[in-house]
C-alpha cells in the first residue's frame, strides 16, 4: 500500500487494481489519469481523487468500488462523494460472499454437467423426446442436465418493431431524395426511377424478471440456465432475478461459460430460495431500472408462480406502471402446466389484470412454444384493460388470455397454448 498521495503516484498499479476489481480500466484510461495528474496539484489528495475519478470511472455503479479502492491504495478514509446510495459490493473481492445458490448448485450439479461429450449428446437427444412434456419439477438431476443442454440450443425469436432509422426499400416507402439526385446526375439529369426508403426493423429489447424465491426453488437453477442462454443469444436482454429484493444479473450472465456465469450470478443473489415480495421488487425495478431498460418498446417476461407475501395492492400498482411502459408483458407460470391449476394466488390475481399473455413454463415443450410465440406477438392497442374476474374460468388452465376483448381484437389469440 502506498502512503499518502505524493508526486510519484503508482498510476499503473492503481489502474491494475481497479481492473482486477472488475472496472473496465485499460491502458488508455491509465494514460489519461497520468495526463490528468500533470494538470492538477498532485500533492492535494482531493484533487488526485477527483482527477482519478474523472478519468478512470465510466459508470455510476463503479463509483462505490472506486472509492473504496482509492482509499485502500492511497491511504486514508474513503473520500466523501455526496449522498449517493450505497451500492452492491459486486466487484469487491473482500466482500464476495457465496450465497445459498452456489451451495445449492454445488449440491445438485452432477460432474457430468460440466463437460459435454459427443456420445452423451447423442444419447441425450433421444432422451429429450421423452423429456419434452415432463414437468421440470418431476425431473431427476440427470434429466435436468439434459434439459439444460437442450435449452442452450433454444433461440428466442423476439418480435420486431419498426425503428425510426430508414434503409433502402425495394418498393413503397418514402422518397429517398439524396439517391434520386445521385441517380439523376448519373443519367444526365433525368429522373428515371424514384428511390425510396423504409423504416429498418429491429428486435425489441427483452427484459426478464425471474422469481427465485423458495416456492420456485425447483425451477431456479434451470431458470438461470435459461436466462444465460437467452442473454447470450439475444443482444438486448436484461435479466433480473427477485425474491425479497431485485438483483440485476446482466453483467454476470454475459459471461460466456455457463458455469462461470451462474457462479458469478450466485454471488450477486442474496435472497435465493427465500420469501417473495413481488410488488416491492417490481417497484424497485420501476424506480431503478425501468427508464433505462424499458425504452424502445421492450417485451417483459415475468417468470413466477405468483406466490407473494407482500401487499397485493402494491403489486397491482407496480404492474400497472410496468404495463404502461412495456410493449408487452408475458407472465410465465410453471404452475400453469399442472392440471386443475387456477390462479387464485393473491399476487397472481392482482397481476393478471395487467398482463398480456399468461403462459405455462414447466416443460421443454412449453419453452419451445414460448420461443416460437415471442416472435409473433401481435401489436397491442389501447391501454384499457378489463379486470380479471376473480373466480377461475374454463380455459384458464390452458393459459387463455385474461381479457376477452383483447382476444377478440388480436389476430393471434394471445396466450393460447399451441397444441400439437
Amino acid at each position: 500500500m502506498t502512503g499518502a498521495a505524493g508526486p510519484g503516484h503508482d498510476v499503473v498499479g492503481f489502474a491494475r487494481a481497479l481492473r482486477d476489481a472488475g472496472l473496465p480500466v485499460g491502458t488508455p484510461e491509465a494514460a489519461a489519469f497520468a495526463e490528468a495528474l500533470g494538470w492538477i496539484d498532485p500533492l492535494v489528495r482531493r484533487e488526485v481523487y477527483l482527477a482519478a475519478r474523472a478519468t478512470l470511472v465510466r459508470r455510476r455503479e463503479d463509483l462505490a468500488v472506486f472509492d473504496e479502492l482509492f482509499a485502500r491504495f492511497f491511504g486514508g478514509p474513503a473520500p466523501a462523494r455526496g449522498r449517493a446510495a450505497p451500492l452492491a459490493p459486486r466487484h469487491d473481492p473482500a466482500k464476495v460472499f457465496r450465497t445459498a445458490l452456489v451451495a445449492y448448485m454445488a449440491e445438485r450439479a452432477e460432474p457430468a454437467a460440466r463437460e459435454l461429450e459427443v456420445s452423451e449428446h447423442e444419447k441425450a437427444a433421444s432422451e429429450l423426446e421423452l423429456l419434452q412434456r415432463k414437468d421440470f419439477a418431476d425431473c431427476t438431476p440427470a434429466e435436468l442436465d439434459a434439459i439444460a443442454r437442450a435449452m442452450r440450443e433454444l433461440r428466442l425469436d423476439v418480435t420486431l418493431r419498426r425503428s425510426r432509422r430508414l434503409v433502402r426499400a425495394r418498393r413503397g416507402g418514402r422518397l429517398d431524395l439524396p439517391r434520386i439526385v445521385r441517380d439523376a446526375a448519373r443519367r444526365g439529369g433525368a429522373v428515371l426511377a424514384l428511390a425510396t426508403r423504409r423504416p429498418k426493423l429491429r428486435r425489441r429489447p427483452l427484459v426478464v424478471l425471474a422469481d427465485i424465491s423458495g416456492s420456485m426453488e425447483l425451477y431456479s437453477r434451470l431458470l438461470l440456465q435459461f436466462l444465460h442462454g437467452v442473454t447470450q443469444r439475444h443482444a438486448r436482454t436484461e435479466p433480473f432475478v427477485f425474491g425479497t429484493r431485485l438483483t440485476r444479473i446482466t453483467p454476470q450472465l454475459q459471461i460466456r461459460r455457463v458455469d462461470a456465469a451462474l457462479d458469478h450470478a450466485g454471488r450477486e443473489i442474496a435472497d435465493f430460495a427465500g420469501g417473495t415480495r413481488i410488488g416491492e421488487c417490481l417497484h424497485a425495478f420501476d424506480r431503478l431500472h425501468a427508464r433505462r431498460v424499458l425504452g424502445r418498446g421492450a417485451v417483459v417476461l415475468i417468470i413466477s408462480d405468483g406466490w407473494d407475501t407482500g401487499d397485493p395492492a402494491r403489486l397491482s400498482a407496480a404492474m400497472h406502471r410496468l404495463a404502461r411502459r412495456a410493449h408487452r408483458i408475458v407472465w410465465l407460470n410453471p404452475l400453469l402446466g399442472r392440471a386443475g391449476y387456477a390462479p387464485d394466488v393473491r399476487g397472481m390475481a392482482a397481476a393478471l389484470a395487467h398482463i398480456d399473455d399468461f403462459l405455462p413454463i414447466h416443460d421443454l415443450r412449453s419453452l419451445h412454444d414460448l420461443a416460437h410465440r415471442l416472435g409473433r406477438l401481435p401489436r397491442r392497442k389501447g391501454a384499457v384493460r378489463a379486470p380479471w374476474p376473480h373466480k377461475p374460468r374454463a380455459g384458464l388452465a390452458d393459459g387463455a388470455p385474461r381479457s376477452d376483448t383483447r382476444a377478440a381484437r388480436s389476430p393471434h389469440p394471445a396466450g393460447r397454448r399451441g397444441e400439437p
Partner: protein
Amino acid sequence: MSEPAASPAISPATTPQALAEALAAHGYIVDDALAMTVYLALRMQRPLFLEGAPGVGMTLLASGLAEVFDTRLIRLSCYEGLDLAQAAYEWNYPRQLLALQAHGRSAADDAAIDDLYRDAFLMRRPLLQAIDAAAERAPVLLIDEIDRADDEFESFLLELLGEFQITIPELGTIRARHRPIVVLTSNRTRDVHDALKRRCLYHWIDYPSLATEVEIVRRKVPGLGEQLRRRVVAFVQRLRREDLSKLPGVAETVDWAEAMSHVADAGAGALEPATVDATLGLLLKYHDDIERVRGPLVEQLLAESA
C-alpha cells in the same frame, strides 16, 4: 494532417476552482467534483460525458460553458434514427434537381455534376457547423440526450470525436481548426456504448446538496426571502427521499420557488400545507406521485424538513 489546435480562450480555466467561479459568475453552480471533471476535459481536450437524472442541469452546464468562454453553443438533440443528413450535413436536393434540369441538355459532362455538389448546395447541420474550419474559435458542441440516438449514430459520433473531421465524398474532408468543447448528456434511458464513453471524461451529476441548491435558488429567484428559500429547498430535498416515480429536478425546485415567491406570505417565511398541496403540480409530474404526497404526507414532510 496536423492535430486541431488547442481551444484558445481557456483562460477562465486555469484551475478547477477558477473554472467553478467563472461558471458561478454566469449563474451555474458546480461542486468541486464536477469542476474538476470539466477542467480536465478542457485541459485534456476530451469530450465531457454527463449522466444523471433528468432535471439536474446537464444541458445548462453546456450553455454556461459557452457563456464563460464567450463562444457559440451548437446543440444537437438526439433521437432514434438520427442520421448524417440531420446531424452533419445534407445537400439541398430540390435546388440540385432544379440545377440538373436547367443543365439538362448539355449535361452528363463531369463539370455539370461537380457543379451540383458545391458549397452553395450544402446545408450545414450542427456537427458540421461545430467543426467548420471557418469558426473563429472553438464552439461548445452540446450533443443532448445521446441515449436517445441509436447504435448507428454512436459509431458515427465515435469517428467524429476521434478525428474532429467530416468527410463529404463530393467535397473532401473538412477538419476542425479549433477542437470544439464537446458536452454529451445522457438521461440513461439506455446504456451508451462503452467505446464512446472511453473517449470521454465521465461524470455522474447527482441532485445538488442543500447548500448548493439554496444558492441556485438564490440566484434564479432573487425575490424569495432567505428563510422561505431555505424551507422550499429543504422540502424538495426531503421529497427526493420519498419513493416516487419521478423525483423533482432542480428546474422544478426553481419553478416552485418562483411560485412561492408569488403566493406565500413573504413576511411569514413559512410554508403552509395547503399552499404546498395546491402547488404540488409544479414539483411532481405524475398523478400517482401527487396523490401519494398530498395531504398528511405533505404535513409530515414539512415538519421533518423544517
